């Protein structure tokens, strides 16, 4: 298994408006990106599970032009409301760091 933190170039989170957080995962090379896509590990269900949200409220879009995947999830508490912990939504990426991609996809390297 390879962890995303060891193969991605950027893993970040940020508000997409005050009611949603968007999480971007980007890769350095086309080869890496293609392998992670082929693994099928990253999808709307993964975002739903990691962030405890309904999969029907997850907007997941692979974006080959930026060698990136984007998942947008609803916030449990809107930005800055009482009980919110992260007004900018910039530190909600951590659950993605340890997502494991089966190494079978990297064997040709």
């Amino acid at each position, binding site marked *: 298994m390879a962890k995303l933190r060891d193969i991605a170039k950027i893993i970040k989170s940020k*508000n997409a408006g*005050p009611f949603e957080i968007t999480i971007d995962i980007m890769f350095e090379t086309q080869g890496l990106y293609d392998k992670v896509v082929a693994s099928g590990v990253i999808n709307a269900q993964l975002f739903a599970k990691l962030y405890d949200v309904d999969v029907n409220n997850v907007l997941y879009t692979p974006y080959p032009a930026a060698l990136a995947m984007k998942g947008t999830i609803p916030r449990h508490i809107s930005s800055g409301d009482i009980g919110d912990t992260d007004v900018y939504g910039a530190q909600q990426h*951590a659950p993605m760091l340890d997502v494991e991609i089966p190494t079978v996809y990297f064997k040709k390297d």
Partner: protein
Amino acid sequence: MLSVSSILGYGFPEASLKAGLARNPHYVGVDGGSTDPGAFYLGSGKCLSAHKAMKRDLRLMLTGAVPQRVPVVIGTCGGAGGEPHLQAVAELARTIAREEGLQFRMALIHAEQEPGKVQSWFDDGKISALRNVPALTTATISRATRIVGMMGAEPFTRALDQGAQVVLAGRASDAASWAGCAIRNGAQAAPSWYAGKMLECGSASATPKGHDCLMATVRGDHVDLEPMNHARKCTPLSVAMHGMHENASPTLHEEPGGLLDATDCTFTTISDHAVRIGGMRWTGRPYDIKLEGAECVGFRVITICGTRDPILIGQLDSYLQTARDDIAARAAGFGVSAEKYQLVFHVYGKDGVMGDAEQVTQIRSHELGIIVEVVSDSEEDAIAVLSIARVVVAKVDFIGRLCKGGNMAFPFSPSDIAVGLTYKFSLFHVVRTDDPYAMFPTEYEEVR
């Protein structure tokens, strides 16, 4: 079109502005706002950037562009684009004109919306919620402290057509000012809006990113992007990556009157620091204007403290529950019942960053930082409850307690911090209209 930075007041190198102006752009501008820092600015009427910082940026823009007869266009003035924000930036422009001996015709495009009108649109069924936003109610409208509409491109185009050399706008779609400028000069809608999406963040589409000047040239069906600081360059990857920024979709951008679709964009290097982007599409749609509203959620008081006690940390949850109950009993004793305030423990070292979404359940730190937060409709109650909470968290007993001197280390005296009124976004909805101008009245003045 030359964008000086990502937000008015965030700064930019003066040399980059000079290099941009030397290229004789048709327009110079900057976006002024964002919902990102929270609803406080919209609710309170305060500006996101300091007046000094905005004045510095605006002075350089006006003294550079006005003598060159290049229009200066600024959207979402003051961070939130309400009336006090627009007036604050307008006053800076007047002051700078006086100090620098500049004369220009200035347009102020207002974006604040009367609650009565919003209610009538709601009654007429013209308002709908955006994805993952609660449905609107009459109570939400009546509680809103301030509501703004997010204008599209048309009010900018009209203000420039009316001869304005400086256009200051309230809340606007980040890309709208630029789209309005380019479309006015005959450019196609798709590349005009795409250019706006890039320009609104200064040179964030370049690498390295930074608050700096970016030139966009819209010609035919494409956009050329070029940073004015040659320490930066736009690359196909840096531009594509920026398209994903702070947007739910990497490719679809909903704008007033249409949808910008970047799914099939092509990115071509045209020099060692410039990129040409083509293939974007614009599909006209019914004209929806976003409404943003802020609602006061009370007066906030906090205290910051930390514990280094492993016995306490080992039973943190029950300790916090005991403290919560004790605070409630003592507050009730001076007449503040539990429904009159909200008490939140932000525990750094446990789940302070992710809250209930945190999946790590085991505390691994030898020390924990705690922010105790009390919010109440009454300033007096908030201050009183936080004051007793500070005592309780320090003194409340727990099993095996050895630290009889106090459970918490407080770094400051006074330790109670009155943060003030606090706000949340309550409206994030769209209203259907057939008139891009009616919600955004424009005034003109001769500044000298």
